[in-house]
């Protein structure tokens, strides 16, 4: 097997794109390499990154999870509610706390609160995965319903109002800077590393690739597809809930409206990262690069003080350009 230039380009093209974007950004703005900018860039990327990480599992299985954005909002509200010990009172009016109110001490120990919200997020994922598997309905439509439902639940529960009064340790998840590295980035990269090892070095992980790449082939190889088909949605729900908790800390409140449209950023990052929408092909590393590419595009436009709406236009165009480049390089490899 000879190493051909075109093949190297096809296999590592994404990394070249990332490097090129870094170089362009550095040339366009002297502020790019400042600590503040980089920390900000990485923090922003981390939230999309965690959602994209869960989404990678789902897309590897040939599915899609539209519910993650809503799940962020729902988890954020749920978390605030649990902290207030008011989950079962169904009277959020009583726990509205004005901005600047003294911070609450959670009634349950904090780790239990976090675990509870993560579990609920995972359960919603389990529900999506189970429904999609059991009734053989594409997850697009199932998770669309879950997306509408959870958003509705979050907004109606709090009448659209945020819930204030986050305790300090939660803010640390969002603002902490151990060794000058943003905490969200540590969580994102740590989770990515774990998922990467999981997908590459466990039989279950390889089974996800197998079932996503060809369910019948996997079945005939002796793999029972059910759990492989359901698990990715659990992972996706889990990471969405994690992002919800972190966002609560970041904003100092539970916000039922946070996360709208984030599922699309996550999907775009995964696809830019080279994971095939038809399943069975892709990687966590690619997704991380895809997230950084998206983050860089936004960041450089912010530095250049481009306004939000032209930014959105540019984002759309650049994502298509990235995908086209990817497809061209991949075709050269085949030819």
């Amino acid at each position, binding site marked *: *097997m000879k190493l051909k230039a075109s093949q190297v380009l096809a296999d590592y093209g994404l990394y070249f794109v990332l490097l090129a974007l870094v170089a362009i950004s550095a040339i366009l703005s002297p502020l790019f390499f400042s600590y503040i900018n980089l920390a900000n860039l990485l923090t922003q990327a981390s939230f999309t990154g965690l959602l994209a990480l869960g989404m990678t599992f789902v897309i590897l299985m040939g599915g899609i999870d539209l519910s993650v954005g809503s799940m962020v909002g729902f988890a954020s509200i749920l978390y605030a509610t649990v902290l207030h010990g008011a989950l079962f009172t169904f009277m959020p009016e009583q726990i509205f706390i004005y901005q600047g109110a003294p911070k609450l001490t959670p009634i349950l120990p904090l780790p239990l609160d976090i675990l509870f919200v993560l579990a609920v997020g995972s359960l919603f994922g389990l529900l999506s995965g189970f429904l999609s598997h059991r009734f053989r309905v594409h997850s697009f439509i199932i998770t669309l319903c879950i997306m509408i439902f959870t958003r509705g639940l979050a907004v109606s529960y709090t009448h659209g109002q945020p819930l204030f009064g986050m305790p300090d340790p939660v803010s640390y998840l969002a603002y902490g800077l151990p060794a000058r590295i943003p905490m969200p980035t540590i969580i994102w990269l740590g989770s990515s590393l774990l998922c990467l*090892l999981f997908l*590459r*070095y*466990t*039989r279950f992980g*390889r*089974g996800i*690739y*197998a079932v996503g*790449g*060809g369910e*019948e*082939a*996997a*079945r*005939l*190889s*002796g*793999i*029972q597809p059910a759990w492989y088909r359901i698990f990715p949605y659990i992972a996706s729900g889990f990471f969405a809930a994690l992002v919800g908790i972190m966002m609560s800390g970041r904003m100092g409140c539970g916000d039922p409206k946070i996360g709208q449209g984030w599922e699309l950023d996550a999907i775009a990052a995964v696809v830019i990262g080279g994971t*095939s929408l038809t399943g*069975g*092909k892709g990687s966590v590393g690619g997704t991380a690069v895809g997230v950084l590419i998206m983050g860089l595009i936004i960041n450089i436009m912010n530095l250049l003080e481009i306004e939000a709406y032209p930014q959105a236009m540019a984002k759309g165009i650049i994502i298509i350009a990235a995908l086209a480049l990817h497809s061209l390089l991949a075709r050269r490899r085949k030819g």
Partner: protein
Amino acid sequence: MNEAGVALLEARGITKIYPGVVALDGVDFEVNAGEVHCLAGENGAGKSTLIEILGGSYAKDAGTIRLAGREVEFASPRHAQEQGIAVLHQELPILPHLSVAENIFLGRQPRGGARAISYGEMNRQARRWLEMIQADVEPRALLGDLPISRQQLVSIAKALSLEARVIIFDEPSAVLTSSELKRLFQIIASLKSEGRGIVYISHRLEEIFEIGDRVTVLRNGKLVGTESIGKIDRATLIKMLVGREIDESEAATAGDTATREAPAPVLEVRGLSRRGVLADINLTLHKGEILGVYGLVGAGRTELARALIGADRVDAGEILLEGRKLNIASPRDAIRNGLCLAPEDRKTQGVFLEKSVQDNISLPSLKSLKGGLFLNYGKIARYAADFVSKLRIATPHLQQHVKYLSGGNQQKVVLAKWLGMKLKVFIFDEPTRGIDVGAKEEIRGLIKTLAREGKSIIMISSEIPEILGISDRVAVMHEGRIEAVLPRREATRERLMAYSMGAKSE
């Protein structure tokens, strides 16, 4: 080797009932250690259902399965594999994005420290199994990048690695060239000598007589009989297969009588090239002529067909239809100009499996089946019904989904699709592959009728008797080139083989 007369695998009274259909009706089947037991029967005879049950994919409704005398129930393919039964499916279920080694060890990858998969160990073990059958395959290569014959070798290596005592081959010859098949037969012979039991499914009589020890014939889900190969002749076997007598020599001689002197060329191909695939193809096709194209798999036959109808881009060359230069950039252009292709991969490219017989037949002709602005469904139904009766397509009704038809009838649907259009050149890529003996004859008959009606035909086939039986001239391809074009009377089995393997000189 053989445990005192106890069969390695013994199935008794296997019955499988689908709503409205008895797929298998009390079928007995057994394999001894060190035996190649062929399983034959027309499509729909129940062969696939039987092996899916033996392989643990389907549950049986009645009957018993014994492995070395002990009764077993297979709950899943995995369970059957663990008991030592491996099925090599015809359309090999592969995971193209995973490596060769991973396809072999899927779900049971060797693990090292911390229960992490050890890729080094996995590749080493894969290499060992591949070497055992002398397969020159790199374990780290992606399986999807390999040709189908190599993929088959990987499946065999996988069966060996599973320590399979019974290996079931589901029509391997449908996807292998004759030289690859020879290799496979050698491998099967050595598996047999190791005391494994082999089940070999095939439509081709030659193969059954070449490697079989016994043959079991199924028809309409029922057992016709099991015979020792040494004790029967071809005629008996054919009679068992189809339940009536077919004169085999008919296929081989019919073309002889019709060596038509062809007038003006209809299709001319000049210098057609596609880098790495086709090199300087020159061809002439006359009115009412059948041009056979023979070659080993990978010789560029399918690629030639695809290039002619514009499915793939070409780098150089021109195509002339009745002296007029054609500009074909897509299959749509080809159809407009009067060329069509019945593709090799019938199920994914020839028909829409999930659509009805009527929809499939009428699709290309919808333009002419309109009443005013809208589609006229009465007209469409009459149009489709007309072809169903003309081609004798066996379907309960026009709305039947094509996936429920047998292979032969699916192929007739492909034909019907094109017959209704005013086309001049028909390209058939392996039109009789994987369909039963009786239907093969019918398809060949239809092709001959087309030629008699003045259509020009390019017929690609890997079966030499078929090529010799039907063609007016035979083009032989080798490594993307046309090595020779022989008139029917000069074409012999030996010459076709020689040219297809690249022997240029006489």
